């Protein structure tokens, strides 16, 4: 089956979330997100069936786990969270942006696994500052549903023209 676009979302005004409508789930997925920021930002990702899974809290009882490395540093892990970490080591600031590429497997009866990389200009804009890089793997431990909705949320605003696009195939 050929790759096809499952959904895309471009913000037409600034807001604290980038959320898709429900889309037709596929097993194999590839997504890209190019987010622009208006203020101090620590973006996070959630998925779900019809509604995003936000059970638990920021620190306990959630259904997501992450392994991550920033700029080649030793891996750190986050467990039992109610989000998949998508942030920089610190907070992205107004005028900065990030670009994220993610591959994922989405089978209803299995934990969902994600492979993700990100580049951002957290250190500052201009060629005098090197970009930062992030390597992450995530899982969403739901084993009854395929996810059919994706949400990014943020303490501050994603700026107008921030975009998310998801391709999939069975």
């Amino acid at each position: 089956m050929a790759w096809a676009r499952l959904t895309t979302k471009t913000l037409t005004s600034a807001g604290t979330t980038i959320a898709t409508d429900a889309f037709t789930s596929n097993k194999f997925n590839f997504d890209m997100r190019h987010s622009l920021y208006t203020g101090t930002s620590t973006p996070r990702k959630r998925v779900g069936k019809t509604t995003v899974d936000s059970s638990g809290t920021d620190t306990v009882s959630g259904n997501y786990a992450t392994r991550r490395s920033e700029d080649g540093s030793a891996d750190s892990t986050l467990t039992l969270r109610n989000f998949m970490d998508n942030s920089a080591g610190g907070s992205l600031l107004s005028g900065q942006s990030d670009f994220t590429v993610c591959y994922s497997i989405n089978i209803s009866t299995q934990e969902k696994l994600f492979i993700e990389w990100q580049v951002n200009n957290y250190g500052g804009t201009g060629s005098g500052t090197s970009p930062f890089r992030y390597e992450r793997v995530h899982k969403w431990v739901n084993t009854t549903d395929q996810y059919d909705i994706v949400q990014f949320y943020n303490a501050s605003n994603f700026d107008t023209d921030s975009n998310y696009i998801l391709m999939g195939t069975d």
Partner: protein
Amino acid sequence: MSFPFLQSYLGLGQGLQTKNAAGGGGVGGWVELGRSTSATPSVASLANKRYYMILSHGILATVYPAYQMRINDDSGSNYSARRWDGASDTLLTNQDKVTSSPAYLGNGSANIGFSVQSWSNLSNKEKLGIHFGVYNDSSGAGTAPRRQKNVEKWANTSSSINKFSWIPDGYGTYTSDSEMIVLGYDPADTHSNNFWTELSSTTLTGSASTINSGTITAKKYLWIQLYAKQASSFSFEGHFNGDTSSNYSARYSGNGGADTTSTFTKFAGNFSGGGEYFLNAFVINVSNKEKLAIVHTSEMNASGAGTAPRRLEWVSKWVNTSSQITSIDFTKEAGMGDLQSGTALRVWGSD
């Protein structure tokens, strides 16, 4: 293969922003915008797309070629990068080219390098790139391939990308059959075609020792994804053309640890236990050159959100220089558990 001239019409550009186009509507995946097969690959007149994917391979003509990428012919000091090439990050600022290459190919006469890049492209924002590269270092399974993983930016905030060029950096050169292919994707796209054609789709309906693509059409570029579930005693290995001999060599890192190298009987495998794995790989598949693969995995580790997943970064080569890859299998290693029902292998390719 798609038709570059057509994409300009189908892409519509970024001026028309879709608010929320759910459900697919038959819009395809990556489309080819242009290609260059040359000793100095360069693709110009690119349609304006929000995202680009660049597949490049360089073949050594004279020793120590070290090409760098330039965007829109901008030779000012407008680039910076964070380059990892084996040990730690190197920070590069105020560069006149972005510091990535299909490979720093070294001095082996049979050397080849391969890279996969992704770029964001919005005219009023810095352009951000993610780069993974592999090169065979020298031929034979006794020498492990080397790898790069870089992030890059072009600090221009007034123009969209319309050209990518590989620029020789004063050392050796590539052969004229080196290549760069630029794919594009935009939220406003309405195309129904794909650069990547499905070559194989296999899903196990019961337990088995192996999952096999069957015979696939030979393509120069391959994209492989595997979901594997193993019953117990977890370890599996991937092969090309059924070759289970020690004709592979790999460099790999588990959970971000230091690289390890080894001669292997596989082009890919898993890092650790847990029984469920998701693998993504890109492969350059030129008949008379060693085949190079860039592989990443996300592995369940143990079920539940109380245990973080594990990850594996892997580059490998298959030292066959007489055939293209025409089949791919993943097989349990001796004494390990069978692959379970639901294990799924997909292969896409393009020339």
